[in-house]
């Protein structure tokens, strides 16, 4: 079974990594690939500054679901809005619900409660998958925020379940934690660059995911690789920059491989701006890069 086959079997995939390593583009690429295989895929973006729609050439989501091709849709989601929606659902009297969501205490609770925002987002993904939504969704891919260590997001439901044990919130968080821990349904894909800091953070993240959550990523994708230098290339400043960057890429990938024996795929730098053409080109390269 190839790594993409394995990912296609999942219900929830979290794409994560350091800021600026191409998480959003990779989310779009995976979405495109899996939708091409006949899956109904929803891509969830968390960053309030939307960029997923640019990668796929659609209108911005503004909170709603936007179609981005056959079997592929995107949604930009703000945790505060999700939590307010939950309150409205739990408190059926609109006046009371509004009183709660407008109160200072509520906002401080949302800001302060550990893991609440992250749990709300993952909970939204869970409900899209299991809440009887029509049309049905087979797979949700989350473009995780680059805030702090990305393991925080995945650890959030467990943390909240523990903290709020005994209440409805705790019970919900506990169900969600069990879902996330189920390796047959949920997976993690790490995006990185073959440069020092991103590789360092990737190694730390692998260790953290294993130690704290018992999760092993399905796949690591090294984005933005400088292509290999053709043999006998001439000496000039452009080429020496290229040669140095390529050497750095190779050295850092070797460092990663020394302690990672799972799937690792490389995507090259391409002379294309962010947009559907880039996503399509990378999707076909990723398909071919698979062993």
């Amino acid at each position, binding site marked *: 079974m190839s790594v993409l086959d394995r990912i296609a079997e999942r219900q929830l995939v979290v794409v994560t990594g*350091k*800021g*600026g*390593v191409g998480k959003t583009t990779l989310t779009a690429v995976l979405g495109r690939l899996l939708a091409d295989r006949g899956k109904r895929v929803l891509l969830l973006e968390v*960053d309030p*500054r939307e*960029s997923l729609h640019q990668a796929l050439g659609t209108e911005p989501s503004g909170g709603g679901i936007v179609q981005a091709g056959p079997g592929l849709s995107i949604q930009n989601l703000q945790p505060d809005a999700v939590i307010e929606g939950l309150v409205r659902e*739990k*408190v059926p009297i609109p006046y009371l619900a509004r009183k*709660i969501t407008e109160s*200072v*205490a509520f906002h*401080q*609770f949302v*800001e*302060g409660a*550990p*893991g609440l*925002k992250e749990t709300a987002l993952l909970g939204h993904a869970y409900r899209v998958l299991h809440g009887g939504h029509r049309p049905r969704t087979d797979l949700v891919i989350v473009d995780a*925020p*680059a*805030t*702090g260590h990305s393991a*925080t997001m995945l650890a959030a439901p467990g*943390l909240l379940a*523990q*903290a*709020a*044990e*005994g*209440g*409805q*919130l*705790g019970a919900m968080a506990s169900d969600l934690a069990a879902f996330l821990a189920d390796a047959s349904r949920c997976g993690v894909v790490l995006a990185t*660059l073959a*440069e*020092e*800091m*991103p590789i*360092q*953070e990737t190694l730390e993240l692998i260790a953290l995911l294993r130690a704290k959550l018992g999760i092993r990523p399905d796949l690591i994708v090294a984005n933005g690789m400088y*292509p290999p*230098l*053709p043999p006998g*290339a001439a000496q*000039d*400043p*452009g*080429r*020496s*920059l*290229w040669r*140095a*960057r390529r050497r*750095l890429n190779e050295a850092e990938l070797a460092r990663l491989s020394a302690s990672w024996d799972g799937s690792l795929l490389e995507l090259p*730098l*391409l*002379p294309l*701006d*962010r947009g559907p053409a880039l996503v399509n080109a990378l999707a076909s390269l990723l398909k071919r890069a698979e062993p």
Partner: protein
Amino acid sequence: MSGALLTGRLIVVVGAGGVGKTTLAAALALGSAKEGRRTLVMTFDPSLRLKDALGVAEAAKDEPIRVMEDGPGFLDAALLDAKHTFDRLIRTYAPDPAAAKRIFSNRFYRDMAGNLSGILEYMAMERLFEMQASGRYDCIILDTPPTRQAMDFLQAPDRMMNLVDSKAIRFAMDPWWDDAGRKNLAFRIAVKGAMELSDRIIGRRFLLDVVEFIRAFAPLFDGFRSRAEEVRNLLQADETRFLLVAGPGPDRVPDAMFFLRKLKETGHHLGPILVNQVHPDPGPVAKNDEGLTLLRFLAGRDQRGLALLRSLFPGERKIIPIALEPVPPADLRTLALLFDKLSTTTSI
């Protein structure tokens, strides 16, 4: 001369993740020390190699570590760690050891304090204040947290002040759990409804933990409040400069715009904008040379990004491109070379 870049007693380096803030902050700090200033660079968990380059280890979480000395100038480095700073603040400011112990043994504090949103940013501010107040430095360079919403730290002092003043806190401080009987009836009925609702949804134990935490923490509130205010004043002071580091290319411009807008809104003083990792033009390209075609595309893309940024801020401020280094700096020697390059670029 590095005049434009090293203006100010406090330089806050901001920008999106992955744009090279930490390396630039380290290079600037080294340059400042070499120019004779007593300099401190404060950074959030830099990569191992940079830790090696600066020669600092875990110990720098407690006290700044001396990296180099050069005549009157020197460079110290401090690592920022939210939980560590929080613990230390409590030890320092708690009225007595028993009060500190109460906080340390609170379940909410133990499990969650380090995860609370905004805490990392606030703790950075506390540490900054401490260092600035010590008078040991002519120049402090702060490398901000590696989050996309890194501007949170600008709001951190305000948020702390709001929290301390908030109704929620006063409410929690009211003894409605143990001797609510003394409260008047209308209040009790109103509170009872809200509490039952939140009890059902959130769970009593969690609420009790939080309330207990807030009560244990209360004696420290006034100190937090006044320091938060001083930190806010420090950030808005004339001798504080914000250096924005942006990534190359048009795709990164929205990130830069976001930071610029935030800084403008909050009335902070912005220095020059550094556009980092700009690909240089590789020169003429043969038709069939794929690799150089790519380099040429990247150089063109990065120039488009610069042009876009300049068109959005016509003549308003200096926008300084910094060429992509073939090999990123990894020790004091290469950091010094990067600083020399920065100084010559900025003087033009």
